[in-house]
């Protein structure tokens, strides 16, 4: 286990994509402190900001207010990162495996273009959760993202595969231009959810206003949702009991293929 404790609050955003189990594995503590980071527009070392406790391992524990520390766990392929405190933008972006547990709030683009693994955020998160960067063909492509608080706009935008579950509210344009995958929102859904959605599923546990390019299909109990909720439960997420509950199925977005769906729980 390697423990990083923030001792000097960065004055500018700190780009610390080196904080991953892949980079830390098997390195001595001195080498970890020398890992390069970018502070504002200047090169710096990880040790300039963090106290490093322990040799490099695949199990990282971060302490402190890291809301200015960006790219934590970005691109990681294995191991675990646990953050006790807030974290900055791009947390776990492009990660391919392993697990990140954030016990605070996170900035924008958490889990953007994630390609595997699990990102579990206990607080709120910003915009672009699991989404696609501007110009990218798709966002999240595999894996699991759980947010126990609220999420901002463009959650799961252009996602291709995987599951995003948000216990709180989600901002506008959730699942916009989604290609496939599943977004489950237990709180309220912002406007224009599923705009330009190709395939994929958005599940809403509260009534919501849909775009006129969605058409009502039926009222039924989607069995796959039981499987998804059980899967979330296995990750320690408290989920509502939907036994016997029905959902309204709307197909869309008919501005495009119309093969996606928004499922809204019955009152």
């Amino acid at each position: 286990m390697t423990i990083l404790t923030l001792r000097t609050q960065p004055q500018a955003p700190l780009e610390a994509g080196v904080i991953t189990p892949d980079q830390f594995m098997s390195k001595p503590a001195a080498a970890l402190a020398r890992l390069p980071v970018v502070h504002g527009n200047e090169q710096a070392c990880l040790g300039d900001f963090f106290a490093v406790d322990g040799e490099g391992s695949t199990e990282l524990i971060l302490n402190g207010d890291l809301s200015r520390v960006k790219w934590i766990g970005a691109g990681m392929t294995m191991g675990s990162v646990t953050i006790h405190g807030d974290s900055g933008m791009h947390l776990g972006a492009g990660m391919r495996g392993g697990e990140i547990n954030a016990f605070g709030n996170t900035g924008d683009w958490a889990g953007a273009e994630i390609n595997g693994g699990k990102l579990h955020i206990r607080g709120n998160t910003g915009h672009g959760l699991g989404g696609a960067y501007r110009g990218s063909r798709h966002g999240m492509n595999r894996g699991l993202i759980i947010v126990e608080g609220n999420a901002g706009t463009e959650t799961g935008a252009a996602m291709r595969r995987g599951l995003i579950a948000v216990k709180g509210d989600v901002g506008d344009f959730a699942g916009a231009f989604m290609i496939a995958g599943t977004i489950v929102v237990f709180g309220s859904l912002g406007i224009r959810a599923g705009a330009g959605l190709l395939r994929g599923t958005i599940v809403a546990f509260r009534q919501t206003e849909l775009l006129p390019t969605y058409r009502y299909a039926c009222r039924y109990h989607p069995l796959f949702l039981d499987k998804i909720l059980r899967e979330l439960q296995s990750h320690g997420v408290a989920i509502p009991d939907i036994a016997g509950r029905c959902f309204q199925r709307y197909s869309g977005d008919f501005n495009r293929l119309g093969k996606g769906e928004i499922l809204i729980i019955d009152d």
Partner: protein
Amino acid sequence: MTYLVKGVEIEDTFAEAFGMWGGRVIITAVSSKWAREAAGKMTGYATSVIGCGCEAGIERDLDSTPDGRPGVSALIFAPGKDGLETAMAERIGQCVLTCPTTACFNGLSAAEQASIGNQLRFFGDTHQISKIIGGRRFWRIPVMDGEFLVEEKFGVQKAVGGGNILILGEDSQSALKAAELAAEAMRRVPGVILPFPGGIVRSGSKVGSRYKFMKASTNDAFCPTLRSLVPTALPDGVNCVYEIVIDGLDLSVVEQATRVGILAACIPGIQRITAGNYGGNLGRFKIYLRKVLEEAVPA
């Protein structure tokens, strides 16, 4: 040579069993009634690979299922992996997909896998939807009562088929009672099915026939009505024989079922319990009755 268990002669012989491939299918539905209905249909006409291409049976009712609904598990066996995959896909497609409210899940963790949902999805005519949940892919196939949810891959493994015992009784009542008790005890063994009706066979067969076009024919040595016509295997006083055929996911469960079945069948009116074999020339596995019983009752 025989020896006695609870006053019943146990012949010191072996059951000859064969290498098979097996898979476990979990069927859930809105109620136990509909889960059993689908499982009953899916495992129907699957008593013997000779005539049916596969052997199948309901394994048990389940307390816990992948979707939390009432469900049952069933086992399917076939001589080869490809044959098993075909049998599973056809049977799930015709009997589970068609049954109201059902869903179908893999119930076996195995290195080898059969592609089932991946074949059935085409019924969705391009409207099927795939979902990966917990690392496993499921297919949602639109049907008239909503959706049929089926897992894409089902685990399959090498298994054992054709384990058996023969219960020789003084009359049909006692033989049937003993066979029923044996079947009931055997069904409690996980990983085992008894593919014949009620688990019991009255038409035991031998290899070949006087008719050249027949692969198998009646086991005349055990037919009471032929006692004076052919060399018989029946002791005096035996007037009825029932066989129980056992398929299992591995040899140990077939042996266990054999053991509990024999012990349950040793009741008054039963003269002897033996097993069917072909001289050890056909099957890969030999299940010695004495050996399996000694594991239960040390001498």
